[in-house]
């Protein structure tokens, strides 16, 4: 399984990477904002089984990134799990309408994150 982590916080990328590694997922790429993430997706020819996407980022927000990914016919089927803070409740609804597959709310335990990811493991 190949996963793309898009988050402006290196701390959150490390925490997510650790949780994914515990599930045996080691093929993980990272991007530090939505623009870089979308470019990575295109450069890698959309070869990801899951995208973990932070909501609140500079450059290109999670919602803008989600909209761009879903508008691209090459990536509109890739599962996307939004990673959001509790304060982003209304944005979560917008994200679901815009095509997010699922979401995980910060603060989360490793188990919370792993349960969300396991749904997309083959």
């Amino acid at each position, binding site marked *: 399984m190949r996963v793309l982590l898009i988050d402006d*916080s*290196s*701390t*959150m990328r*490390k*925490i997510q990477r*650790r949780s994914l590694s515990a599930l045996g997922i080691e093929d993980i790429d990272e991007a530090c904002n939505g623009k870089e993430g979308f470019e990575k997706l295109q450069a890698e020819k959309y070869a990801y089984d899951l995208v973990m996407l932070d909501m*609140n980022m*500079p450059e290109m927000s999670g919602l803008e990134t989600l909209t761009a990914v879903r508008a691209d016919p090459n990536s509109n089927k890739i599962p996307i799990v939004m990673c959001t*803070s*509790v*304060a*982003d*409740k209304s944005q979560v609804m917008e994200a679901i309408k815009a095509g997010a597959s699922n979401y995980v709310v*910060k*603060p*989360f*335990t490793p188990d*919370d994150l792993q349960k969300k990811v396991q749904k997309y493991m083959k």
Partner: protein
Amino acid sequence: MISDCVVLVEPRHIIATVNTYVKMLGTKPEVVGERYTQSGIFSVSEVTALIGFSGEAVGAMIISLSEEVSLKTISKFLYFEQTEINNEVLDGIEEIVNIVSGEAAARFSYQTGLGLPTIMLGEKQRLHGNEEHPWQFIKMKTDELGEFIIGATLKEA
């Protein structure tokens, strides 16, 4: 509505802080002493993460820690021992204030958004609080990580 502005750090910031520490750090902080108010110029610890609130209410929240507690906290957060204040440690502290403030903001009766977290670093850091909208603080601690302070100031927009 006014009560939100008067009673800031208890209980919503405390609940948010406890939830964040329990879920993401695996340790439960407890309140030490009473809540207190400060205005004018006052000192904070060596590592202070600040994040602004905007929307129907405006203000800010901080988490303030010593360098030693910062290193212990991020070592626990990342499962990797940190021995010096560096970008990794400061990014981690920013993320903690981001998560805590996000959960606290969701408990306001106001619609509020969050800014991007900022770190103030170094000895003899001082903040200023307006007398009409003073900062309110509470000290918390975990046996494992040590003491830290959370504080907030908020007013209706």
